[in-house]
């Protein structure tokens, strides 16, 4: 491998940078953080829906990359390896939060004053910006309504723009299943959004 040139750091591909980093060039790692910080935030936010949790996960992902640099082998794309780490961290956090929030709330049938709380969506479209914001919220909501197996593949494919091969590698799911889930997840997103729009129209 050629000697590391700090001035050319932007020109190296990810795998070269990782190799330089494995050989002690911290600047190569910094460049990888720079390249992937936004993409990882965008990816992990879909799992956390919370900016602080998201940032913590991104940071933890990079820390693992840093700490486990020698476990990376060049046979895999760097991005595939890193997204696998990020996805595993996201799943761990998701399970942890599920355990934390698993609180049972029962309605007391014998108590006439004990009613289920109904939260109504009182969105009023006032301008284009708000309309756009609501559309984004609907998309976000639709995404969260998908079963996890379906959500993770379209996040990787349609939001992270990864190839089907990479999605298959990261999730460890056969290509045929990846495509099938992506087809259905995309379709279901459209169905969910259509339902939200109809509900909104009927409520108006």
């Amino acid at each position, binding site marked *: 491998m050629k000697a590391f040139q700090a001035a050319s750091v932007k020109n190296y591909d990810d795998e070269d940078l990782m190799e330089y980093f494995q050989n002690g060039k911290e600047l190569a790692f*910094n460049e990888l*953080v*720079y390249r992937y*910080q*936004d993409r*990882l*935030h*965008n990816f992990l*936010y879909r799992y956390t829906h919370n*900016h602080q949790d*998201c*940032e913590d996960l*991104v*940071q933890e992902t*990079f*820390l693992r990359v*840093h700490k486990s640099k020698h476990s990376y082998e060049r046979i895999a794309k760097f991005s595939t390896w890193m997204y696998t780490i990020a996805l595993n961290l996201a799943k761990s956090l998701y399970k942890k939060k599920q355990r934390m929030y698993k609180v049972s709330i029962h309605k007391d049938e014998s108590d006439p004053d004990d009613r289920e709380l109904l939260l109504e969506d009182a969105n009023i479209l006032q301008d284009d910006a708000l309309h756009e914001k609501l*559309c*984004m919220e609907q*998309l976000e909501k639709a995404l969260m309504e*998908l*079963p996890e197996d*379906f959500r993770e593949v*379209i996040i990787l494919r*349609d*939001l992270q723009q990864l190839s*089907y091969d990479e999605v298959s590698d990261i999730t460890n799911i056969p290509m*045929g299943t990846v*495509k*099938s889930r*992506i*087809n*259905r*997840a*995309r*379709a*279901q*997103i*459209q*169905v*969910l*959004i259509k*339902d939200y729009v109809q509900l909104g129209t009927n409520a108006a």
Partner: protein
Amino acid sequence: MHNLLDKEYHPVIEDFITDYVDDKMSSVERATFEEVLVHDDELRELAFSAKEGKNLLQQFQQIKAKEDFIDRMLNSIS
């Protein structure tokens, strides 16, 4: 609510749906597939919905890292 998640087609058909949604078909393949769609309501609904769903997902706002993220990140390592 209508659920499109359950039914699964033969892998070849799944490939066709993906290529159709991603606009990766030749004109001949597209014409052939669209002929199939005309006669299969469920498949047509899935393919059209998937195409529209993909377009919706492309509107998603991009979440970005805070400006000082890298500095804080690298400080935590050193």
